[in-house]
């Protein structure tokens, strides 16, 4: 009976902790590994590895979001980064931002120029939806013209398919 109450209490504590995990502190992420293990009750010490929930500052420090080949869709991980920036922009109304879209070298340059723009626009749309006005956002595309990785392989290409967030 007591164990139950204790567990419930722990659960509530964990939840509240995770909710305010990033708000005021600049400390790195709450390590929720233990929470995960306890809540599941396995307690064997192996296996369950959680994902570090990064603090907003860390997300803000990330100035690049990445994309899959020939796509301008934003996945969960990158969405979090964009949301952090959107929040920052919403909080600081005199700041302007440039979203610079890029593509990897495969395919034709002009099409990649358009693809880079599409990616930058995807980020712009997301940020606008979170309340940032158009006049503070600029989008540019460099297509494949400014890669950050020069090799001709998938690892390099993955790094080049990006939108840069420039203040």
């Amino acid at each position, binding site marked *: 009976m007591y164990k139950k109450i204790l567990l419930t209490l722990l659960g509530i504590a964990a939840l509240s902790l995770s909710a305010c995990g990033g708000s005021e502190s600049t400390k790195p992420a709450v390590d929720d590994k233990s929470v995960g293990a306890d809540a599941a009750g396995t307690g064997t010490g192996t296996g369950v590895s959680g994902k570090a929930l990064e603090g907003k500052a860390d997300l803000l420090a990330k100035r690049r979001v990445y994309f899959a080949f*020939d796509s301008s869709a934003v996945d969960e991980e990158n969405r979090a980064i964009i949301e952090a920036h959107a929040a920052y922009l919403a909080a600081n109304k005199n700041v302007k931002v440039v979203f610079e879209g890029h593509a990897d*070298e*495969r*395919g*034709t*340059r*002009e*099409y990649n*120029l*358009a*693809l880079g*723009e*599409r990616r930058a626009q995807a980020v712009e749309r997301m940020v606008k939806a979170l309340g940032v006005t158009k006049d503070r956002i600029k*989008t*540019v*595309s*460099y*297509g494949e*013209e*400014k890669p950050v990785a020069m090799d*001709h392989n998938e690892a390099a290409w993955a790094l080049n398919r990006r939108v840069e967030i420039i203040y």
Partner: protein
Amino acid sequence: MKAVKHLTRIILAAVLAGYATLASAILTIEITQGVDGGLPVAIVPFGGAGKEQRPPQDVAAVIEADLARSGRFTPLDKKDFVSRPVEDKQVVFKDWRIVKAEALVIGGVKLVAQGRWQVEFRLYDIYKEKQLAGYSYVVAGDRLRAAAHQISDIIYEKLTGEPGVFSTRVAYVTRERDGKRFSYKLQIADSDGYNPVTVLSSAEPLMSPAWSPDGTRLAYVSFEQRRPILYMQNVVHGARTRIAEFNGINSAPAWSPDGTRLALTLSRDGNPEIYVMRLSDNSLTRLTNDPSIDTEPTWSPDGKEIAFTSDRGGKPQIYRMRADGSHVERVTFEGEYNARASYSADGTMLTLVSGAQGRYHAALLHLQSSVLQVLTDTPLDESPSFAPNGRMILYATEHGGRGVLASVSSDGRVRQLLKLQEGDVREPAWSPFNHSTPTN
């Protein structure tokens, strides 16, 4: 007995005659197969004046490389030459029939004044045993290559009936390391990559150079303002203007065959669409209207159609429409990715980049039959464009870790790398026949 044999023969002859008359007056044999290959031509090393004055260029070698690169000729191996004439009177046609040459080129280069050379050549038809062409030039040492290219043009035209492209030029972009950064140049060189001349230098990327039909101007995309903007520059004296600097992308310039209009890609209305700008008044007409990416326009040689790249079907494919934007129809159906089309001079073919499974090749689409012919096996090809005679295609590819230019004959048989420049080379554009030479 002899009478019988004779009789038999007469009967036989009559029968045969009858058979022959039934068939036709004369025996006709149909020949339908041949050997696909270059015309066998023997190019004899040019004679010189004397050993102390060696010309700065090996004219015969330039001619041989030109003819080979076109894919239409097979220069014969000099090891097999029975004789090496340098003058008309030394030519023995039988010697060349032995090696099965169909044409013979002989010539000489001789110093006639300070820094001035006399170049002579003769072209012969071996089996008709007659001279087809013979010319003499006097040029400065630095124009010897130009003279060689001109000779190649004459030989090409005499033997194929089509104009040669060896005196044309190519424009392209180079990128070189400049400390931690890069520097970009727009250059114009000979059709074989020699003698490059820089017409623009920038710290920001350059893209998509396009020759005007009269060969005097280049339109291109420059990022010098930190975004893609379209410029036009006179090749001879370097004066340039900004043609399009709207919001979003300004790119993909394509000249109409009459030189009065430019098709281009603008995303000022939200997504990349194809527009046509009349150069006389800079007026704009929008041709496409589709939320997808529409870019890379190219004009048909008669100016009535524009082919372009669109991913309105999901992935980039080639479409074409009338020059007013109506009657859009899809043109490529094979492969996963087809982009960057450009028409051949006779309008029957498109060269484009065709991609499948992550590999992108220069390819040819025969418009009549819809046959797509992949021309290379290198996986990172870009920007293919036709030579003005439609017989060769120039494209950018990757070789030894850097960007280089290559040419491939339009039947795919002969491929050559152009002379390697420093740094990465990309975005080649072949000049039209009438081109201008920049004066530096």
